[in-house]
């Protein structure tokens, strides 16, 4: 049960980091994050599951596909929106629109069926008294590697520094001679790719269908609300809290009651700490 919590938490962290990246850089809440997750899952389903492409190569394809989608979204939708400088609601609704679009495109192309893939690795590990299927372990390790890689990337590379600068102050970054539009598009692509990777990883465990987008978007929102929006450690913390809450809940309670309790808990939590665990108080 706790091991499941770890597996979930690590993958959720990937989702939460992606949405945090986009949120902190562009101040856009990516409502389509769950749909991107779902598309990542389907890419793996088709390449690895149907056409027998190597699993890791499929994951690379996921990065490419989602990267392009994210890049296009930023380039053609959000960048235009920012230049028009209308009210905040507009960019939010634009994001909702992209979510609706992706979800229904997926529904048209992929159908409604639940899809799964054969396990990537077989075997079971015994840790203490608990059994951990190798597939889950692989997913966990890959996600961990990706998270560490991402954090190092953002911390130490030139592009990563530009992203952080952009998150802190758009004006100043612009004045420093950074091509803000390009970096923002790359940031969006990166965030989308992270969502897709999480989808590609988790679908080997849970499978995927066109309807899961909203569910995962909501999970992503819950995580960043727990941790504090736009804050990297907050995103990870939120993922840990949600991952374990879910794993424990599913083990002890019938299916959807877990989520009901999580929602209730969240609303009560926000009553006391509207800025999340690690967020700064506003104003």
């Amino acid at each position, binding site marked *: 049960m706790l091991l499941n919590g770890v597996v979930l938490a690590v993958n959720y962290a990937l989702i939460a980091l992606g949405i945090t990246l986009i949120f902190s850089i562009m101040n856009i809440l990516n409502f389509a994050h769950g749909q991107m997750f779902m598309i990542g899952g389907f890419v793996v389903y088709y390449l690895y599951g149907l056409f027998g492409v190597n699993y890791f190569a499929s994951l690379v394809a996921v990065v490419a596909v989602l990267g392009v989608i994210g890049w296009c979204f930023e380039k053609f939708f959000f960048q235009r929106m920012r230049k028009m400088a209308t009210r905040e609601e507009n960019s939010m609704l634009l994001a909702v629109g992209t979510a609706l679009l992706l979800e229904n495109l997926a529904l048209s192309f992929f159908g409604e069926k639940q899809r799964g893939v054969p396990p990537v690795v077989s075997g079971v590990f015994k840790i203490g008294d608990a059994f951990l299927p190798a597939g889950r372990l692989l997913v966990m390790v890959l996600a961990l590697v990706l998270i560490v890689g991402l954090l190092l990337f953002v911390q130490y590379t030139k592009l990563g520094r530009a992203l952080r600068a952009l998150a802190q102050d758009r004006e100043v970054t612009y004045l420093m001679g950074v091509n803000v539009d390009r970096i923002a598009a790359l940031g969006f692509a990166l965030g989308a790719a992270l969502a897709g990777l999480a989808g590609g990883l988790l679908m080997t465990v849970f499978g995927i269908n066109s309807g899961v987008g909203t569910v995962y978007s909501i999970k992503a929102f819950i995580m960043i609300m727990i941790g504090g929006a736009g804050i990297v450690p907050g995103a990870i913390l939120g993922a840990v809290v949600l991952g374990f809450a879910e794993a424990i809940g599913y083990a002890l309670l019938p299916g959807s009651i877990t989520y*009901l309790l999580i*929602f209730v808990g969240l609303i009560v939590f926000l009553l006391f700490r509207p800025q999340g665990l690690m967020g700064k108080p506003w104003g």
Partner: protein
Amino acid sequence: MDQATDNRCPATAGEAGGSLFSWQALGFTGFLLLVFVGVPVTFGRLPYFITVLTNAAVLSFISLGVWITFSIGRMNLAQGAFALVGGYVTAILATRYGISFWVCLPLSGLVSAVLGALIGWPMLRLKGVYFAMTTLSLTEAIRLLALNGGDVTKGATGIVNVPPPGTIWIFGRMVVPPFSSADPMPYYFLAAGMLALGLVAVWRLSNSRLGWVFRSLRQNEDLATSIGINVAKYRVMAFSLCCFMAGTGGAFFVAFQQNIYPSTYTVADSVNFLLYCFLGGLDYLFGPIVGAFLLVISFELLHAIQDYQALIYGALMIFCMLCLPNGILSLRLRRFDGRRNPKA
């Protein structure tokens, strides 16, 4: 209508301009004529089309609620949740206790409004995307609640065979004949009546000083607080009004369709209510109505594309945001100060 002219809030007189007002009054009168005379005469023999119009009318009634929350500066994605609550209240009361629909209708609104006030009080402290995220989660939470409601909500099987609205007797006279599921006309009149009442109520709200207080919240809550406005009270007031409209709308649909399931209102429905408001134009009271009628009717007319309805909604939403950010009505009433300041 002359009476209403006198009632105009001094705050709006002169500023809003008499011309805008009379345009609104004219529009409303025309609207009433169209709805209560024009439509029944023209389409009276086309029950299918009457059904479509009934749908559009109540959907725009519910969207009007969302429009109110927009006026206090919140993007409300929980409207589906409260419509579901209202629907279940009516379904449960009508099937289990045999309570008349005419009692259930306002009661459902009331239950939704009270629930909205309770949940809204903490939730409305959140702003912008935070509020949007939480309300979105709430829509999902209420759906789950209905799914897990055991015997009360009957879970995924939903509540079916809800009786249609019955007769109203006043002093032994039959004022409203019983509804029958075979004839959509009475439902249409009820829906049109609800919409007309809702329009008048919200129009009055937005032109009274309450509307100004609401708008002051949207523009700057801190400043509103500093001049002694009890911000929390007014946002809860606006939100529960919004929930009331969702609740009555949900109750209507239960009586109209005679059933309700946890999936009757999902996140997608909450999003649609927003879309109607935006498509019509957030600055205009008629915005949600124009948006809802336009979308609902065009989709009913174009059967061929119905399978792709949600897809087209998504594309339309993006198009609307990029090319028509102030809604369809802004085309007619484009202001002359053309350029809008950033983040205004």
